[in-house]
């Protein structure tokens, strides 16, 4: 790695000030799994690292008006094992559990992963399906961006210079709803997905027809994707094989995958449809079960 200076401020304001001072030369480091690996490979060479590890107030998971707020410094393992997350959003705990290995999950933070903006990651897919929002702080103050709008390009997020992710807010789910996350990784058990899909389905009062569906996909392009056209097909419809096939075709047209070691673009396109079908089937089943319970 190149030589660099390192600071670990204790407050967010201090951290933002240091970032402002050093501009392009500085990078934020939290868990460091992505950044240190890239620095060791000489893909990035910042001359200043600002660590957020000592900043207080960023590592909490808390309920806030029915929503759940996860601080940026919470690591993946903490989300996976959080009783609050497992109770309110089991699909999110399960998604974080699928990331890499326990060891990496101990290190990698929620905020750091979001800021890294790798379209092959798992958590953003489910966060999009859950309608989550990213909390950001910067020189101009605080703002929120829906997760589905947070990714601009490969490794490029909506963060402006000097801004950091401070947390992510996951809004409460309707009662008669279900969610599922399916990660398709056919080579070995420790990998990014060839394709990953998260689906949430909430049902109309009849407990059968779809009121709203949200479908998000990972590893299908330069950013995670929300399949709005497919979602529109599902609204108001009862579950059925034809409907799923229809939605699958729409998804094939919506994605623009990159060929890589985990699959060719053509294969990923096909799998986007297959895996979306599986995720929707699971989510719909879960929604129906939830609807039966609330009746």
């Amino acid at each position, binding site marked *: 790695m190149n030589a660099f200076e390192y600071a670990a401020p204790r407050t967010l304001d201090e951290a933002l000030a240091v970032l402002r001072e050093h501009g392009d030369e500085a990078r934020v480091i939290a868990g460091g799994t992505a950044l240190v690996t890239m620095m060791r490979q000489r893909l990035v060479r910042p001359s200043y690292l600002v660590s957020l590890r000592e900043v207080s107030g960023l590592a909490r998971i808390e309920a806030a008006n029915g929503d759940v707020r996860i601080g940026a410094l919470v690591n993946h393992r903490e989300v996976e094992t959080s009783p609050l997350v497992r109770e309110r959003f089991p699909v999110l705990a399960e998604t974080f559990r699928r990331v890499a290995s326990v060891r990496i999950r101990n290190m990698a933070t929620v905020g750091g992963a979001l800021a890294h903006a790798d379209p092959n990651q798992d958590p953003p897919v489910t966060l999009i399906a859950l309608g989550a929002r990213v909390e950001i702080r910067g020189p101009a103050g605080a703002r929120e961006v829906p997760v589905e709008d947070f990714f601009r390009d490969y490794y490029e997020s909506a963060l402006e210079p000097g801004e950091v992710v401070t947390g992510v807010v996951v809004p409460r789910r309707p009662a008669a709803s279900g969610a599922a996350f399916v990660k398709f990784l056919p*080579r*070995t*058990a*420790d990998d990014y997905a060839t394709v990953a899909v998260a689906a949430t389905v909430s049902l109309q009062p009849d407990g059968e027809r779809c009121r709203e569906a949200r479908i998000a996909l990972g590893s299908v392009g330069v950013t995670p994707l929300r399949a709005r056209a497919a979602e529109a097909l599902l609204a108001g419809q009862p579950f059925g094989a034809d409907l799923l096939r229809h939605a699958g075709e729409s998804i094939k047209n919506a994605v623009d995958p990159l060929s890589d*070691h985990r*699959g060719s673009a053509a294969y990923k396109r096909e*799998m986007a449809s297959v895996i979306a079908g599986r995720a929707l089937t699971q989510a719909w089943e879960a929604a129906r079960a939830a609807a039966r319970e609330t009746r």
Partner: protein
Amino acid sequence: MAHRIVGQPIGRVDGTEKVSGEARYAGDVTLPGLVWGKALRSPLPHARIVRIDTSRARSLSGVLAVLTAKDLPSILVGRRMFDMPMLARDRVRFIGEKVAVVAAADPDLAEEATTLIDVEYEDLPAVFDPEAAIVAGAPVVHDNPGAYEGAPAERPHPNVQSVLRFKLGDLEAGFREAARTFEHTFRTQLAHQGYLEPHAGVVAIDHDGRVQVWASNKMPFRLKELLSHALELPQEKIRVNLTPIGGDFGGKGSLMDLPLAYHLARVTGRPVKMVMRYAEELMAGNPRHPAVITLRTGVSADGRIVARSVRSLFNSGAYAAFKPAPSVSLGGASMGAGVYRIPNLLIESFCVYTHNIPCGHARSPGEPQMVFAEESHMDMIARELALDPAEFRRRNLLRDGDHLANGHHLEHVRSSDTLEAALKAAEYSQPKPGPWIGRGMAMTHRHIGVGFTNAVVRLGVDGHVTLRIALPDTGTGAHLVLRQVVAEVLGLTVDDVEIEMATTDDFTTDSGVGGSRVTHTGGRAAYHAAEKLKVQIQAEAAKLGMPVESLPAIARAAAREGRTLEASHFYDAKAHGAVTSFTAQVAEVAVDPQTGQVTVRRFTTAHDVGTIINPIGHQGQIEGGFVQGLGFALMEEMKSEEGRISTLSLGDVKLPTIQDIPPLTTVILEDPVGPGPFNAKAIGEGSISSVAPAIANAVADACGVRILDLPITAEKVYFGLKEKERRA
């Protein structure tokens, strides 16, 4: 015949050092004043070096030396064929070839310094595909390879490193006899041995000019010879200090970066450590040769093989330097004949130069490639003949007195028994539990390795025996096996026998580790040395009128007269005897028709072995070899395009993880007929080669898709299924 110690599942002797972190591998060695070496590597597959400017690197604080080819003698290195410069001289021939080397105070600084070396290149035309490389007019990798020391004589094309042939009978006559003829072509991938310890070495030059070496190398005597050749120093000036090795699997027998570490040590006056990053292993670490193999087989009306021709092209990359066999080829090519009696046979195997990463030996060199092709071919023929694959094999299996492709005749052949044992344990003929489930089989065999080894056993005054050898333990547990052998002979417990690691000063020679030979050669050397010591002890006991068991007293009595009871033996195993070991394997797989994903539900591996000396170690070799075969079959691949390897992280290479292993059933047929001590055979390379074809055959059985190139990925099966639907 039951033994006391041999055959017991005793825990490893080096266990405490390994589990406690005390074991010092080459990369752990540190010396006062040590500095770190790092290489700059070529970014181009074939280019002329126009100019190298090292001035910016030299002026980085903490850098002690920067060397290029002009600072070194123009000596070429290799293991058998010496065609590789220590640093690229006037041109580079593969992406990753070393162009310059730096010594600095820490490894980060050394790496930083390499980025400050400016090299100007002029692109040259390059060739990457082995078929394209042997066509007239192809870009030539080496202008005159025949001039290199160790180069084989036959060279049909300047890009051919070697040609290896196996011939039996009359091929043309055989094919004329055939009722039907079948031809298929297969491809296998570039794959790394996957040892978790990257190449590491430390070189220090004593004040008396002696060169001390610690290296992740499994044949210390050959290393000393090769260093002597590369550094132009007499062998007595070089001492190789043995260290444990973090996995070899064929890949750690070359000089790698040691000559550069030496020259940096010479120039800086400091000990130098060089450790490859894994990305460097994946660019320049002598992986397994990719292959293109075509088999043509003629079969009689009653399903007997009457003729076979095999042509294999191994994509050897830019240098032949990493291949150790005198043929400069891969002996595994002989497995083109499989485990079958083939009266008329021609196998032609070409190792081809291209502008790719130079390849070397990997567990069972050439065999996983060849056996995948051959055993898949057998199943495809069986299907065409409407014969059960087991039945087709039964009609053709080798029997006592038959000849192998290399001319050796066989005795104690248990090919049939091994096949039937595998089929029975795998419940091969039982109905399958559901659709999209398939079973497939494959067989292979492997000769016991040969070589030569020295051993010395000495009785200490405390009654303990020390076995002195210069064979490193690459991880197989070989040292424990040798202790068991000595303990058995002398009537001791394993705890009474210690291993003392020799250095290359202590013996004149040893073939080192490899080719599944250590239990045989090391075991025999230890066995015979122990037998000789036993005779000495008995004579001494008789003289003293003591019982033979009172070893401390005997030793002390001898010591009082200035004598040590010690015996040595040099064992040289001649060329392969008439005994081999068969392996039969059955894979049961499930295919997900929507995605093509292949899941191995269970796997059965049957082995015809000699006496097992240590059952835990033996089983460990079977399991480890199987999982490497599993990875080769389904997961592992180094992707290279136009000479550029894009899988430069271990995470990309896809070694199997703990969640990828299926339930494994092992069947052992123990037959005390091996040439090793107590009639042992060998097991180190027995379980890897037939895994891929067993799985490929099972996939074909499950869903009708035949995969002809490894690895068998979900994507290939998926598109195979789509193609099948289209044709239907």
